[in-house]
């Protein structure tokens, strides 16, 4: 199972990729496998203010429905409209074409994005998936 080293992760099985002050968000391959075939993704509307750790959408698979959490604070800047027609991208390519939304994150005093301190590294996330069995 793939856990790209360059990404950051949450215990809710989201991944975050930060470029400048924009954070791209999706769910991990582990999450996609646990959910099974994804049939519908409900994403936050553009401009929505999202809060780290709070639900901002839903991921429905054949067998279940799960909340989608924002891993960061900020404003939704872009959503992956491809998922409307083809939610199976989440299973096929969770880290690339299956991305879900992008958040404009506030900058700190140095111009760096203000990210939650508790985002996990790839190694920490891998540990978490192992302990989850």
């Amino acid at each position, binding site marked *: 199972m793939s856990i790209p080293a360059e990404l950051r992760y949450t215990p809710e099985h989201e991944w975050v990729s930060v470029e400048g002050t924009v954070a791209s968000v999706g769910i991990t391959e582990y999450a996609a496998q646990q959910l*099974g*075939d994804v*049939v*519908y993704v*409900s994403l936050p509307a553009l401009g929505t203010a999202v809060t780290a750790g709070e639900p901002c959408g*839903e991921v*429905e698979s*054949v*067998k279940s*429905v799960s909340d989608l959490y924002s891993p960061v604070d900020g404003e939704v800047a872009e959503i992956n409209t491809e998922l409307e027609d083809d*939610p199976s991208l989440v*299973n096929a390519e969770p880290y690339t074409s299956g991305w879900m939304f992008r958040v404009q994150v506030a900058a700190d005093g140095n111009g760096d994005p203000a990210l939650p301190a508790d985002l996990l590294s790839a190694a920490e996330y891998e540990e978490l998936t192992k302990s989850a069995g």
Partner: protein
Amino acid sequence: MTSFAGWQMPLRYASETAEHQAVRHAAGLFDLSHMGEIRVTGPEAGAALDYALTGHLSAVRPGRARYTMICAPDGGVLDDLVVYRLGEQEFLVIANAANTPAVYGELRSRAAGRDAVVTDATLDYALVAIQGPAAAGILSPLVAGTDLGAMKYYAGAFGEVAGRQAWVARTGYTGEDGFEVYSWPEDAEAIWDALTSAGATAGLVPAGLAARDTLRLEAGMPLYGNELGPDVTPFEAGLGRVVKFDKPGDFVGRAALAARAASGPAKQLAGLVISGRRIPRHGYPVLAGGKHRGIVTSGAPSPTLGQPIAMAYLEAGAAEDQPDLAVDIRGQVVPAQLTDLPFYRRSN
């Protein structure tokens, strides 16, 4: 993998949608060894089952199967069952895994005083099912001792599969043609492997519980715990045909079931096709004319229809009074279309 009634079961091997489509268009292989097998044997085995179940089992010929139910004295469904008559004095009752201890206990007490022996033989059997239009072609060359081509639906025979002793039956829970192979547990792996290699070129794939659930839902088949339970009789589920009032003698639940048949059920199982992509799930309210008049029992995206489908219990008359049906999907009211069950019927 998932825990299911004390068994570790594969929910899916890869994509449940691909597994579903393989069963509809080629074949799927299921490990169903969790199902309960209860043996009922003896000179009065048939009479004991006639009293214990809703069906007329003593009239079933050896080598044939029946879909039937076991009800409580008040008519509530304790389980739905497939019963094979293996021989003149030998029946095999297939129960849902979670219900097997209860069914076994009821059969024992209901057979008391008759010349019949009831045994929980669940751990004596493994069960592998091969289902789909390609199933007969894949299985036949591996079978010795019986002619699958001549085997009727809901029939079974002893034979050998890949050189191992088995009871092979033309039964299933997918809406497709297919077979269920009951073997000794130690032979199941060899049978599974032989079927896997024999079916590779025909598109056979292993299939898990998730695909089994969407297949049976499209085929309009009830699932215990969803459509069936102690609070419904077979009549609410549209399965009144399994209650054989014309069989001789009394049977458990007869009086209550006769009353229910005469009065008509207060709710009825219906099929719904849903707009959009969100899935109506077990327990979601069904609205008729904006009022809560029913409840979803099972729902899933239908790979065959390309739309979400559901079975639901509707209050009698609700759909006739108020044709504007909808499902409340976590606060969103989504229009639903009433449709006849099953959602899918195979063409051959």
